[in-house]
């Protein structure tokens, strides 16, 4: 919140009438009620994971009668003797590789498309925008055949290679949008000083693009953390599974008999995303608002 509004508010508060205050209370109560409905599923899981196994899904209340930590203990055991941290590590590895790939390749591509002039640029920009809307399913099969031919299935290569090759059009687009906000005079001045394009990009523009780098990193992290289709198609060794595949396998093998463990594991798998969100929510919301990136 900016200083300006805070200052403005102080003045308003002094002049507040009782009617205004009552109105404000009503408004907050209404908003909190809506919020309670919206966040109910999450709250329900939190409490469900602490309930006993018998009535776990039938109990709609948010207060567990007795609290048990046993589900979390079970969840940490993971699946098939592979501990839970292993799946967390896999997810983290994929997410971090994806972030590195996206930040480097998409910013470079955006610099070329947004700042440089060369034949074919417009066509390439057109392709980037078109792929924003292109259903990925159409490339799924040939991509699978290619990766299978290269013998890289059951590795993380198919999951992250696209990130290193600037195929995340969303982020290329995001970087172009942010680049537009940086005055061209900056690069021109550097150019006149004899700086090459690489120097201009890496030592002048990239530092200025920090908000875009942060936004794209967070989104890439969260999306790759949630990604299911890629790991579903390309990975089969349980030891290599990221969390979404673990959850799917766990629900298939443990099923309805162990809802508690399921809930605890689900909850744990969401923790990094929620934490990330809480820490970076300002960036995220600004990023999505200015660039139109979807969550």
């Amino acid at each position, binding site marked *: 919140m900016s200083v300006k509004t805070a200052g*403005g508010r102080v003045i308003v508060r002094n002049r507040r009438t009782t009617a205004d205050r009552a109105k404000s209370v009503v*408004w*907050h109560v209404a908003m909190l009620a809506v919020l309670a409905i*919206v*966040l109910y*599923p999450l709250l*329900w899981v939190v409490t469900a994971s602490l309930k006993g196994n018998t009535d776990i*899904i039938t109990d*709609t209340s948010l207060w567990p009668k007795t609290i048990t930590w046993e589900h979390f203990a079970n969840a940490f055991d993971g699946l098939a003797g592979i501990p839970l941290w292993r799946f967390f590590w896999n997810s983290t590895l994929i997410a971090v590789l994806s972030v590195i790939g996206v930040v480097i*390749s998409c910013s*470079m591509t955006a610099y*070329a498309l947004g700042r*440089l*002039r*060369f034949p074919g*640029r417009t066509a390439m920009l057109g*392709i*980037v925008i078109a792929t924003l*809307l*292109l*259903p990925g*399913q*159409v*490339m*799924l*099969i*040939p*991509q699978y*055949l*290619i990766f299978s031919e290269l013998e890289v299935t059951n590795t993380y290569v198919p999951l992250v*290679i*696209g990130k*290193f*090759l600037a*195929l995340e059009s969303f982020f*290329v687009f995001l970087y172009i949008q942010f680049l537009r906000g940086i*005055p061209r*005079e900056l690069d*021109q*001045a550097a150019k006149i*000083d004899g700086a*090459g394009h690489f120097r201009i990009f890496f030592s002048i523009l990239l530092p200025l693009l920090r908000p875009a780098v942060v936004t794209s990193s967070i989104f890439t992290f969260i999306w790759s953390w*949630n990604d299911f289709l890629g790991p579903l*198609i390309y990975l089969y060794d349980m030891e290599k599974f990221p*969390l*979404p*595949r673990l959850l*799917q396998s766990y629900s298939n093998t443990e099923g309805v008999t162990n*809802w508690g463990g399921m*809930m605890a*594991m*689900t909850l744990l*798998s*969401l923790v990094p995303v*929620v934490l990330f*969100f*809480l820490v970076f*929510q300002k960036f995220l919301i600004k990023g999505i*608002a200015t660039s139109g990136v*979807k969550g």
Partner: protein
Amino acid sequence: MSATPSTAAEPTAGAAGEPGAPPVRGSRGAAKRRASATRGGERLAGYTFMIPWLIGTAVLTIGPMAWSLYLSFTDYHLIRGGDWIGLQNYTAIFDDPMFYRTIRVTLLYVLIAVPVKLVASLLVAMLLSQHRRGMGFYRAAFYMPSLIAMSVGVALIWKALFSNNGVQDSIMSSFGWDGGGFLGNPSVSILMLVLLAVWSFGAPMVIFLAGLMQVPQELYEAADVDGASKWSKFVRITLPMLSPVIFFNVLMETVGAFQLFGPAYIIGGESGAPAWSTLFYTVRIYTLAFTDFRMGYASAYAWLLVLAVGVVTVIMFRAAKRLVFYAGEDR
């Protein structure tokens, strides 16, 4: 695009430029020479920076698209290979009862989920666009579900919420609707996915919020002077001023909804349980390709999706030309 030298097209770094910008050095002639040299350098740099994208696009986008187009005219089977069969896949699709099923399911989802989600997100955005205490908290809290809604974890939670005797069943039973959980009821099971979509209204909401913030307050003040009602202010000011943002959200949400996969797969499985009622188009493509191995046929399915999304996009852009109001735009 531009045959003109880029430097000339740019606004000259004049008085309005950066305060610390160094003064322009050198004579006119030297600058010109340098400009043409830079142009060559710029071209080289441009292609160099584009190398990853060029490789990626050639190998993993354009190549696969051409290949899948080719596959769609073959009876390619993952194990057995295949031969050119011309348009047979496409004619077979139109005789395929499952095709119409998946279209029904997908369209039903798009037509319910997208409008409901957008209306909900606009409403909440309008509530949150006021200046009140704690707005940052509300925005963050309402936005959060959209980050996790598409995860496997939440889809599994959804299954629990909507199973027999689950939360939804219990709540509805207390209101006298004794139909059991949505999870086992093909006539309402799609609602689970619709609700999941609506639950993730945070993303379009934030975009609406940004749009609402940019509507000039003077317009509302002027309308107040004229004694306009809240509704007429909404219809005459908010909606038109917001129309570019609305268009963006409608486009992205619609295109996204056509391609829903993860939650549909987790909730309905490969067969779109119960009774094919959650058999989304993309799930059908996945099953055809990766469990039945009918890659040629699946490719034809995928290309029809591309075609459909393309048509929808074009229609939307056409409609946007007439309906979207770009304030101060002279495009």
